[in-house]
């Protein structure tokens, strides 16, 4: 009756075993997915954050360094009931925020009761000191150190830029895949420009973890671990004391100072006024402070030396003179009557030669020079003739670095503007134009636009008698002690070196006995040129460019003070104080300093 039932049971056993073995073969040998899943389960790649490179001034003084900040993390499994009112008071958050934070935390994808989760970020050492006494009242909350930026002074904010957490959009567009959420990244200034050098290389420690996310040791005894490499330090050409002094002098004024070492192109000071304290853009209050600073109507985040495009005014006459000399349309002895019919002038001169015209900033003279330059009579047609002349003029003017970014190691550098035939074609809708339409460029008004850095570079070029190095903040990177290669190239102007002698003679006279007398120093020959840029109906902008000493110049400087009248007053005073400070270490003329700080540059009306 029960025949064959033994066999049925045996077959069932063997069949079940075969099913198991086939299934096992599929998940173990055929399907590769499980091996990968196992790795992502148990292997934790722990990032070791590198220390960001330091930024120093030309004498090795620290400008930007790193300080610890603290993240408050919470391990939910250890959290016990706590006094939420007290918690909110200690950590300075509202009850709603506390509730929201807990809610957010639990909604996160990687949420685990057993894994420390970020609760509050960027607590400063002061915050930490305040809360650490209370930490034991809130079990489950731990403090994790990290580093953030700190600044030795409030100076140089706009050039330094700031560092903050990488934004979501930037993270998505990061093709290199270097950044992760929560990483700090340079957001502007040299922090952004030298991000690659400053950030260093992250290290990784591969850890084995258990299901609760708790580390159980290193993977293969650390064979695949790498150490983090600190970012490279940057040595800038900035003289921190000079920079601070420049910011002090620019207090309450709007404008900029750019000082360059002519022999190297290193920037000694780069002042943008008004500025802000870079320490405000670090730590926990970054967002709220940033909102405040960026909505300030004085635009403290606007980096004027690079971004403010002004008409250059009379300082442009030197470029005009050099161009005309080079083209041979005038000689230093050429005299042009100051007839003041087309353009007004100032002073009581009547018939100057080139040096005199520069010294007295004679407008009709340079109008005449430009006419000779643009209308050489190559062709009878005055329209075409102007066109040819302007193209030649452009070539010379641009060789001084006008009309294009100089290539400073900072983001957002503006072009300025050198008018070209094509530009006028467009402006006149392809109707003909000639010299009489465009003559105001003769005296640095009209269509010309220049940023203060280009002015400083221009005067450095004069100081060098015909060449410049692209201005740059950083003179040495890391252990190489070299700047970026593009800053070692000499850029020559189209002007013969000999021609600069005339300009320099004239500039010395500007300071010795001309419009720039406030810049005169006792033992140092300062060569300068004032400019007063029309700004109706507001008071004119004051400009002064200078270099010193005359032989073997150490500093070339441009000062631009908005709405402060004649260039010989505010701008020349500030420039000379800066030169004094840099060359002597202090000023011998406290009355000039008082004059600058009083800020009363305008004639009473």
């Amino acid at each position, binding site marked *: 009756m029960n025949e064959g039932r033994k066999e049925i049971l045996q077959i069932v056993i063997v069949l079940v075993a075969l099913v198991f073995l086939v299934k096992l073969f599929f998940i173990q040998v055929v399907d590769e997915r499980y091996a990968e899943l196992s790795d992502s389960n*148990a292997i934790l790649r722990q990032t070791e954050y590198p220390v960001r490179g330091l930024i120093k001034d030309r004498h090795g003084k620290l400008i930007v360094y790193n300080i610890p900040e603290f993240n408050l993390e919470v391990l939910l499994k250890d959290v016990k009931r706590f006094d939420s009112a007290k918690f909110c008071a200690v950590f300075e958050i509202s009850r709603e925020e506390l509730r929201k934070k807990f809610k957010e935390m639990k909604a996160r994808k990687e949420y685990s009761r057993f894994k420390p989760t970020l609760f509050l970020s960027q607590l400063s050492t002061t915050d930490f000191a305040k809360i650490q006494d209370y930490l034991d009242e809130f079990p489950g909350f731990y403090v994790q150190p990290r580093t953030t930026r700190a600044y030795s002074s409030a100076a140089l904010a706009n050039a330094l830029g700031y560092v903050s957490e990488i934004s979501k959009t930037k993270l998505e567009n990061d093709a290199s895949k270097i950044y992760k959420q929560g990483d700090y990244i340079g957001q502007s200034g040299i922090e952004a420009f030298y991000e690659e050098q400053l950030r260093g290389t992250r290290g990784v420690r591969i850890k084995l973890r258990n299901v609760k996310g708790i580390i159980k040791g290193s993977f293969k005894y650390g064979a695949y671990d790498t150490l983090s490499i600190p970012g490279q330090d940057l040595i800038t050409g900035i003289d921190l004391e000079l920079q601070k002094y420049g910011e002090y002098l620019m207090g309450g004024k709007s404008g900029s100072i750019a000082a360059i070492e002519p022999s190297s192109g290193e920037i000694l000071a780069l002042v943008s006024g008004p500025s802000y304290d870079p320490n405000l853009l670090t730590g926990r209050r970054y967002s709220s402070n940033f909102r405040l600073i960026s909505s300030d109507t004085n635009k403290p985040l606007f980096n004027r030396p690079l971004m403010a495009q002004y008409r250059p005014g009379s300082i442009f006459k030197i470029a005009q003179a050099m161009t005309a000399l080079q083209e041979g349309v005038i000689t230093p002895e050429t005299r042009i009557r100051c007839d003041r019919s087309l353009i007004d002038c100032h002073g009581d001169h009547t018939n100057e030669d080139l040096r005199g015209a520069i010294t007295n900033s004679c407008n009709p003279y340079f109008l005449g020079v430009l006419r000779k330059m643009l209308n050489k009579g190559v062709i009878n047609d005055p329209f075409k003739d102007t066109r040819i002349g302007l193209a030649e003029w452009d070539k010379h003017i641009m060789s001084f670095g006008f009309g294009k970014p100089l290539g400073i190691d900072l983001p957002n550098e503006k072009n300025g503007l050198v008018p070209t035939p094509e530009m006028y074609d467009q402006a006149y809708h392809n109707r003909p134009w000639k010299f009489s339409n465009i003559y105001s460029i003769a005296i640095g008004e009209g269509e010309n636009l220049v940023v203060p850095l280009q002015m400083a570079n221009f005067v450095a070029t004069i100081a060098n008698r015909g060449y410049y190095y692209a201005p740059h903040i950083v003179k040495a990177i890391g252990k190489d002690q070299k700047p970026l290669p593009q800053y070692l190239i000499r850029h020559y102007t189209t002007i013969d070196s000999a021609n600069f002698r005339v300009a320099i003679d004239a500039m010395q006279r500007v300071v010795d006995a001309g419009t720039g007398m406030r810049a005169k120093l006792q033992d140092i020959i300062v060569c300068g040129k004032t400019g007063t840029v029309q700004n109706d109906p507001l008071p004119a902008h004051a400009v002064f460019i200078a270099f010193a000493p005359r032989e073997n110049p150490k500093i070339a400087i441009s000062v631009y003070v908005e709405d402060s009248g004649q260039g010989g007053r505010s701008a020349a005073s500030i420039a000379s104080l800066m030169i004094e400070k840099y060359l002597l270490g202090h000023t011998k003329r406290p009355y000039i300093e008082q004059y600058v700080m009083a800020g009363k540059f305008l004639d009473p009306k």
Partner: protein
Amino acid sequence: MKREDNISGSLDWPTIGLYLALVLLGWINIYAVVYDEGVHQPIFSFTLNSGRQLVFIVASFFIIMGIVILDLRFYETFAYVLYGLILVLLFLVPIIGKEVGGNKAWIGIGSFGVQPSEFAKFVVALAVAKYISSVGFRMDNLRNQAILFGIIGLPMALILLQKDTGTALVFTSFIFVFFREGMSPFLMIVGICAAAIFILTLLIPNQLYLHGGIIILLVLLIGFGKKKFKRIAILTVGAIIIMGVIESVDYVVTDVLKPHQQNRVKALINPDADPLGFGWNVTQSKIAIGSGGFFGKGFLKGTQTKFDFVPEQSTDFIFCTIGEEHGWVGSLVVVVLFVALLLRIIFIAERQKNRFTRVYAYSIASIFFFHFAVNIGMTVGLFPVIGIPLPFFSYGGSSLWGFTILLFILLKLDAHRGQVLQRI
């Protein structure tokens, strides 16, 4: 002394060899589970499960000696007494027992705890064997069948009261014994069909397709078979019952099963639906086994089981460690060892002249088979998660001793098979 030699000589040594192999492999794998690279404790350390398991193993040897020394007639004579005793114990567990892991299945003796349900298995097997082998028992007698189901049903019910569904389900494996002893296969077929329909209903989201399929099948069967009224009536009624079952599945899943049991069924159907929630056990278990590859990661090199990704890894999910560290080859060895043991037990059963021993042998074969099939089935995702141990492998004194007693009572009975024949 001469008698002792006889007994040890007539014990079935191939089975003992398989037993020792399984226990030893189990012990080593328990060590692999708890091994911590940082701490590096030896396998014998009593702070580890492996050290304690060694104590259990040594204790099993004493139990084996006791079983072998004890008089042969004890087991058959006291089968019902033991049965009564275990019922009392099982009844007492919910009252005096202590709670471990959500189940109140333990009785504490000092600092030690034992699970009476583990010992209920051999006691019920003895009782079933005794009843089936009793004079005048007929498998086709409905009253006898009812008593038989009562014998397995009572302890099942008491264990269910302890909320230990897994162990309770083990007793359904006696169906195999009844089948072998002559019960109509109808019950088994109905059971398998019901299970198949249950699973199909869960797998196929729209039950209309299932109903349609059954109606088509019914029409085909009626159309191509003999057109007798009785046959058509039976088929129609059968189809309606099946359709009723389908409709009730939803009700069973949502209302009868407890939420964690529902989730286990859902996890089997679609483990990816909630891999971090109810699918966790199955997903992690499959990841652990699947990451082993052909040869495995190597002894003590597993990451998934060691770092607690797999739950209950020392006990119910011990097979994951084998799969992860020893790969398909290791799994093959374990599966083959179990199949060999099961076939050997059936071989022993069939060589008995005595019905009591044969029924007992089939009982333990069925129990071992159930544990083997369900346990490995759940770790590889072929079966819902039912917490029952893998015999001899899983960590735990009660289960090791329970299985050891089951097996060695058989070996004791088998050793005297000639003697028994003489006595009758």
